[in-house]
């Protein structure tokens, strides 16, 4: 059996580079993760659970965290907007959907991993001094 993905990234459309950057962040944190195409994830999802099949970043992230072992998911919409969500938290609690450059997408991936690892987030809070 495949190792369970603690974090799932669901992406729509041609967003390979963005998805790659988020997965790199998760890999550096050592957190098992998996990327899924939106169509696949939607097909498998229970009818109605995925906000009527809308493909905006927020609902893709909602879909992603429902499919992740540790309730943390990232959604990337076809236009590149990205959203990080936790299944038990209100939407946008971890920040609204936004457009990020590749370096920040990697950071977002790291933060997704850090939520699973119970470590403080680097973003948006400034890096801790020590």
């Amino acid at each position, binding site marked *: 059996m495949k190792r369970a993905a603690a974090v799932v990234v669901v992406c729509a459309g041609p967003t390979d580079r963005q998805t790659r950057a988020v997965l*790199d962040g998760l*890999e*550096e*944190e*050592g957190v098992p993760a998996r990327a899924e195409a939106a169509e696949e994830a939607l097909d498998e999802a229970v009818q109605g659970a995925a906000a009527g099949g809308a493909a905006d970043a927020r609902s893709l992230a909602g879909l992603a965290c429902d499919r992740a072992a540790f309730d943390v998911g990232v959604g990337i919409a076809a236009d590149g907007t990205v959203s990080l969500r*936790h299944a*038990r*938290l*209100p939407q946008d*609690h*971890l*920040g609204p959907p936004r457009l990020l450059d590749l370096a920040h997408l990697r950071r977002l991936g*790291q933060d997704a991993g*850090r*939520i699973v690892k*119970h*470590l*403080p*987030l680097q973003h*948006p*809070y*400034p890096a*801790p*001094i*020590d």
Partner: protein
Amino acid sequence: MTLVVGVDIGNSTTEACVARVACTREAVEAVEVLGAGLAPTSGVKGTSQNAPGVQRALERALDAAGCRLADVAVVLINEATPVISGLAMETITQTVITESTMIGHNPSTPAGEGLGVGVTVDVAALDDPQGARHDTPVVVLVPAEVDFDDAAEAIGAALTAGVDVAAAVAQRDDANLIVNRLPRPIPVVDEVEHLDRVPRGMWSAVEVAAPGRSIRTLSDTYGIASIFDLDPAATRAIAPVARALVGTRSAVVVRTPAGDVIERVIPAGSLEILGEKRIGRVDIDEGAEAIMAAVRRLAPLSDVRGDPGSHVGGMLSRVRSMMARLSDQPEDQVAIRDILALDTFVPQTVVGGLAGEVSQENAVALAAMVRTSHGPMDRLAQQLRDSLGVDVIIEGIEADMAVLGALTTPGTARPVAVLDVGGGSTDAAFAGGAVAGSGGGGGSADVHTVHVAGAGDLVTKLIDSELGLDDLEAAELVKRCPVAKAESFFHLRLEDGTVSFLPEPLPAQAYARVVCLTETGVVPVPTRHGVQRVREVRRSAKRRVFVANAVRALEQVAPHGNLRQMHFVVVVGGSALDFEIPELIAAELGRSGIVCGTGNVRGTEGPRNAVATGLVLAYAREQRAKAAS
């Protein structure tokens, strides 16, 4: 019946107490307190800048009492303790890395595992046939501009071609990404900020421990000596490096001809302590204990000076000029009447470090207390008289008033010592014996008082520097509130181990952090230290300042300097409201068999309002004495 208001101007808070005083001879219950109020002190205490603060406290007390200013017959203000205090802190050691050893660098995600020894080579030089020598193992350096994919490919190709790549050092947070793409894992340390400072072509060792473990070889002097084949003299020189690496998960040591870590002692200078009878001199290097022993020996002090040009000279002149500015006196007339010296430490960036490493440097903190002139009090009284349109009397000495007020705490009796713990200084007053009859006018003849430097502000400063917060507001919160760890978005583990569940999920910036439990919610503390460490630093700072000062001050007012001669100690003042300072003091004094507790002025006010209440009581007693004669 007369309506009077007692007003106490403290370093940080101004308190007022409104009371009805009966002037008849028969009245036993002569004083009826109607209300109390407080406001932040405006300006330096004892100066005419205090007027707005006095007015605000007065208005609040009158509101609470349901009275009007027009009905007030007299406002009583205390002869404010003419002391103000200042703080200074100076590091006395400095860690310098003369060449390229990395100490105290602990990236959160190093990769691979084990020890790799080789000659440093740039990743770009790996495919250069001259660069990568096939006969010696290499340690690859990966600068930030090289993508991890390219770096992994180059290292992988070299490994396949038969180059013995022993380890790698990366500038960015890429260690796991590189190692996961290699044909076989090698130890990689990342987040080395100044990778350009690592010399190329030098023997070096990289060690990464398994998760949950710390390194074994590079943290051992003989381990390093074996790797680099060092002679006894060089081994001696490398010992501090090994010591500095103990407990880390990863490390890099580069062998350079003169590589060394030095803990340099900064010449801090010496203090000249002028006692009223004798003069003494102590080197700052001798530490706080030696300084305090000299202060005890030479007390009472008339002034303290530092060598000009030395660190301590600079510290004292900063305090002096600050005090001169605050008290409106020429600098040469500012005399330091007490100091509290404390050993502390300050996290500082290591000079010559490669990854912005931080080391704990020793430091000395000094709180100094300065006497101010009495002059401005009369000016303040006149100003209040004009602005309030009410008679204003300077009623009595602060300490006497504090004793009178503190004695309204249920269960107390003379002989009593009152410990007033505030923001800037700690004051003690001792009143012996029973007061005789109604005379005595406050009984100041047998009240001994002392003021010592150091209180709440110094605790804040210690917490700020020892936790490396660099944020006095955050340090103030840490001082005032218990801390907890945000273990999830939905629950907190408090410092005593209990769990508290939250009605609303925590904001992302508080997640997994140490947070302060303030009255208005949780506030994250900007530190990487754990809950227990934060708690330890907080309590130790309070113990070193408040407990040390309580003992120091009480010893000076106790009969024959013997604490055991005191039966009751009542702790009052703003810092007595703290959630642990009174218990820390009580625990220490309890060992001498003293009954010590937090004041509860008039049985209702807690440790607040002692002096304001004392002022009203003293006035009533005077009126009664007048009526009797």
